[in-house]
């Protein structure tokens, strides 16, 4: 039996299909979840995909946070349920206060779409155990509001607790503090990542297959539970 991983579709989600494909390629069973229902359908982990939920009106992720499915996810996450938020999903996790900080407009104001090199800095979260410490990976980055911002106190906390999971390498795409591309919660079950691992799972369509490791990592962690 393979593990069931839920993919949430909000109005305006774009990458839910790609994320589902990544889950299946990693060996999991992809289960579509709908924003308007609070039913997690007995999934063992959830991915919040990229896109423009609710048109990104007000602030990115601000309205999605109040969707019925998010109530279930926030409650489950507090009990150690694995959650990965990619791009818009990361923004939703910050707005939900599952992760600290906020994502703001790229410092150069441009919508960026590029293959971005990252350095993996924490291999202990549910979603990153398959990487080597310090491993460099190449996955697509595509967003307009990817600049990670927080106050100094939060930044010091993230750094001292090793909760920065990935940093941009060679190029600063958006003015994120300390070049942060992704962070985790204290327990390591909730991870937010601005670039898109689900677009880097096959050499035919992605710049690498590095992204697949996020999905295989969580499946291995679920087996070990």
């Amino acid at each position, binding site marked *: 039996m393979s593990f069931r991983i839920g993919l949430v579709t909000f109005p305006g989600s774009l990458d839910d299909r790609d994320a589902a494909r990544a889950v299946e390629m990693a060996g999991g069973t992809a289960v579509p979840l709908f924003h308007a229902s609070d039913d997690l359908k007995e999934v063992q982990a959830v991915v919040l995909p990229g896109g423009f939920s609710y048109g990104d009106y*007000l*602030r990115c992720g*601000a*309205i999605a946070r*109040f969707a019925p499915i998010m109530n279930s996810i926030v409650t489950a996450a507090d009990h150690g349920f694995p959650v990965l938020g990619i791009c818009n999903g990361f923004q939703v996790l*910050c*707005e939900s206060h599952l992760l*600290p*900080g*906020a994502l*703001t*407009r*790229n*410092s*150069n*104001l441009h919508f960026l779409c590029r293959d971005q090199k990252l350095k993996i800095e924490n291999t202990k979260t549910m979603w990153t155990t398959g990487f080597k410490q310090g491993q460099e990976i190449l996955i697509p980055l595509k967003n307009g509001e990817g*600049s990670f*911002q*927080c*106050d100094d106190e939060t930044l010091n906390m993230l750094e001292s607790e090793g909760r920065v999971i990935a940093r941009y390498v060679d190029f600063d795409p958006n*003015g994120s503090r300390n070049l942060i591309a992704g962070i985790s919660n204290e327990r390591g079950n909730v991870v937010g990542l601005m670039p898109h691992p689900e677009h880097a799972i096959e050499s035919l369509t992605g710049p690498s297959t590095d992204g697949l490791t996020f999905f295989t990592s969580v499946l291995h962690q679920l087996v070990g539970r």
Partner: protein
Amino acid sequence: MAKIIVEVMLKPEILDPQGQAVASALPRLGFTFAKSVRQGKRFEIEVAGDPTPAQLAEVEKAAETLLSNPVIETYVVKIEK
């Protein structure tokens, strides 16, 4: 009919590239008065009659939970007649 106004601004320490872009566009049009520009949001909320203290308390709550993100933004609530 009164309006309740909620103004939301990025905290001073948060980078505001939109405001910066506006600030650098102004001199190109010959406007040289601006030392800096910060850009924010304004919500105009219509209510029937004069806003009650209970309504204002609700608006405060909405401003804190939905209209602003306290991590990066501050807000003020005003009444406009």
